[in-house]
Structure formats: structure tokens, C-alpha cells
């Protein structure tokens, strides 16, 4: 009597262990799936942001080029006039300067591109945030896969997993050999950045 009771309890305990391992692995599998989808989601966002960011930066560049051209023209005029010491020319160049300044003002006031710098800055920070999000969702995938594979490959949970046909998850597919695992002689040297 006591032996049958003992066996019954043992069987129930083992059944509970099987169920708990099964549910845990299934939960992690679902999380792995969602983390992969999250990576896709962020990649999509990146694709949508990129052309907008490119346009914004391009706009800003042409806008800045125009203003710089006006300013350098005016400055050149002033320098020439100073050299010649001709009062007429000085007046003329003065006029050029005020004209340039005036048109810059007009550009700044009337042109919606006045905010180009801010807009492209915003797009660039959105982009860098998206790449952060990509990195962190890959991190999630890596962490989840590690937890999953640990359960599968350690005993006794591994026995249960193989009995129920769970296979190892790949996670972030990274080549196990190659250049990213070796350090060359050149890479050990102190970096010398030439910013020109």
C-alpha cells in the first residue's frame, strides 16, 4: 500500500517535471520567435527612415552651401575694397555685405529649410536609436537562445527535452571561424586617426 502510494507520488512528480520543462522550452521558443520578429520590425523602420534622413541631410548641405557662397563673396569684396583703399569700392562692398546678410535673413525667415539642421539631426538620432534597438533585440535573441540551449544541454532537463524532441536553437547565426576571431599584427598597433 505504502509502496503504491510512493510510486504514484513519484510518477506525478515526474509528470509535473516533464510538463514544467515542456512549458518553459515552449515559452522561450515563443520569445525567441518574437525577438526575431522585433529585429525585422526595427530593420523595416531603418529602411523607412534612411531615405528621409538622406533627403534632409542633402537639403541642409545645399542650403549651407548657398549661404557660405554669399558670405565668402561678400568677404572677398570687402577684402578687395580694403586693398584698393577706394571709398567708392568700400561703399560698394558694404552694400554687398548688407545684401548678402539681407538675403540670408530672408532665406532663414521664409524658407522652411531654416530647420534643415534640426530636422536632419532628428533623423540621424532616430537612426542611431534604431541601430541601438537592433543591437538590443539581437542581444535579446542571443540571451534567450543561451537560456534555451542551456536547458536542452544540461541534465536532467536535457533528457526530458530530447525525449520530447526539442532541437537546439541557432540564435544569431555567426560564423564560428573567420577573421572576426583572429587579431592581426596590424590591429594590435596603436591607432592613429588622421582627421582631415
Amino acid at each position, binding site marked *: 500500500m505504502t509502496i503504491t502510494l510512493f510510486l504514484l507520488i513519484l510518477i506525478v512528480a515526474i509528470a509535473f517535471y516533464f510538463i514544467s520543462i515542456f512549458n518553459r522550452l515552449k515559452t522561450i521558443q515563443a*520569445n525567441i520567435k518574437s525577438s526575431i520578429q*522585433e529585429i525585422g520590425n526595427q530593420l523595416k523602420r531603418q529602411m523607412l527612415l534612411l531615405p528621409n534622413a538622406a533627403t534632409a541631410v542633402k537639403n541642409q548641405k545645399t542650403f549651407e552651401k548657398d549661404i557660405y557662397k554669399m558670405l565668402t563673396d561678400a568677404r572677398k569684396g570687402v577684402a578687395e575694397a580694403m586693398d584698393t583703399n577706394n571709398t567708392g569700392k568700400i561703399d560698394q562692398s558694404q552694400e554687398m555685405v548688407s545684401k548678402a546678410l539681407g538675403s540670408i535673413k530672408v532665406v532663414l525667415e521664409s524658407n522652411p529649410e531654416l530647420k534643415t539642421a534640426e530636422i536632419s539631426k*532628428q533623423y540621424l*538620432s532616430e537612426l542611431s*536609436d534604431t541601430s*541601438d*534597438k537592433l543591437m*538590443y*533585440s539581437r*542581444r*535579446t535573441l542571443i*540571451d534567450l537562445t543561451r537560456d534555451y540551449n542551456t536547458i536542452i544541454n544540461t541534465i536532467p532537463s536535457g533528457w526530458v527535452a530530447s525525449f520530447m524532441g526539442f532541437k537546439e536553437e541557432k540564435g544569431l547565426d555567426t560564423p564560428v571561424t573567420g577573421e572576426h576571431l583572429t587579431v592581426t599584427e596590424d590591429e594590435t598597433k596603436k591607432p592613429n586617426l588622421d582627421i582631415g
Partner: protein
Amino acid sequence: MLNVYEQVSINKTRSVIVIALFITFVLGVSYLITYTLDLDPSIIMGAFIFSTFSAIGSYFFGDKIVLGLNGAREAQRKEFFNYYTVTENLSLASQIPVPKMYVIDSPALNAFATGRDPQHAVICVTTGLLEKLSRTQLEGVIAHELSHVVNYDIRLMMLVSILVGSLSILSDLLLRGHARSRNRNRSSGMLALVGFILILFSPLIAQLIQLALSRQREFLADASGVKLTRQPSGLIEALTIIATDPNHLQNAAPSTAPLFISNPFKGQTIATLFSTHPPIEQRIATLQKML
């Protein structure tokens, strides 16, 4: 070192102990007063109802109390882009829902997290911190706060700061009120007695806070924060900037001090009572070993 599941279960157990001790303490004090002054025993019943309700209240609305005490307002994505997105990213990495985000308008550099569990968590930083720190440094600070969220430090620290902290402040108020009042009638005398008893117990209360919130907690949060960002330098730089900043968080509520990432009352007398923070230099040194 403890793993995160052990930390969670320790914090949950300690939260229950804090509530039980609080109710017992209030009951004990009210019994003492009723007994010595020969008052109506219904006071004890009142004290029991009062302490139970304040325990339940601080469990469910503690985050709002803490935020209100410190004058925080909700943060918008547009206004605080870095803060908002960094918190989103790090909660993604730590696999918790994105907590509610708040800011305190102050030039001081500080941050805290509170709430009863990761599903009801709040993160709060000062605007000064958002202005002075770069994105990477901010990531270090937010990762530290999210670690407090993940391992249920927030629940314990919230209960301790509201329940236990309020007792010591109450005693201070009662005693000072008695010393100031000219006509010392019976009721003010009784309040002073309550204050006096609380003062007698205040070393015990302080000891309790110390026990509940061991200094290890901040080191643990630093370490698990770094495990999230994989970048100790961000938090090291942030802590260095925080340590050298002269601004104090003027309107911080004293009892909520243990919640903050760095003691908001550094160098002030009240700091000794709530000295649950290890010196920042020590934390930086520990982090530097991880580099």
C-alpha cells in the same frame, strides 16, 4: 554573488517583513501609550486599522506618493528623446515592459526607480542629469535603475522609504512641535510622548533601514546594469560626473533618499540616518575592475 531569482525572492520576503514590522511597531507604541496614560483601548483598534490601511496604501500607491513628494512630472518622447529611447532599448534588453518615465525639474544630478513590480514600475531622473550626460552615460544610469526594477529592489525600497521613513520623520515633527508650543496641554504632551518613544526607537529604525537596504544592493545594481549595456565606462563616467557635481536636490523628500542612485543629501546631517549608499568612489573603483 546572488543570481537574480534569489535577489527577487529575498526582496519579496523582506517586503512582507517590513509591512509586518511596521504594523507591529505601530500597535506596540499605541498599546504603550494607552496603557501608561490609561486611555480608551479602542485607540489600539484605530491604530491597527490605520497601519493596515497605510501599508496597503503604500503598496499600491507608493510610486505616486514618491513621485508626488519629489515633484516629478511625466516625460514626453519629443522633449526627452534620449531618455525615452534609451529606456525603451534597455527594457527591451532586460525583457520587461517599458516603465513609466518621469522627470524632476532640477539642476541636480540624480535618478531613482520605484513601483511595486516590473509591470508597475516608474523611472525618474532630474532634468540636470539629462542635460549633463551623454547618451552612453545615460544608458549606464538607466541600466542601473532598470536592474533595481528587475530584481524587485523597487518594491522593498518603496515600502521602507514610505513606512519606516515616515516614522522617523513623524517623531522629529512631533518633538519639535512640542518644544515650540507654549501652552503644553494634555494633547500636545501626549503627542510629545509619541515623539519621544519614536525617538527612543529611532536608532532601531535606522538600523532596520540599514539591514533591509544593505549597501550591497547598489553594487549589485551597478553590476547587473553593466551586464545589460556591456559598457562599464558609461556608468563610470556618469558616476564621476554625479560625484563632482555641487548641486543638491533641494526638494527631495528625506525618507526617499535610499531610492536615489546617489544620496541627494550628501554632506548633510540627515545623510547619516539614511546612509544606505556606499561612497561613489568605492562604486567607481569596483566598476573599474570590470574594464
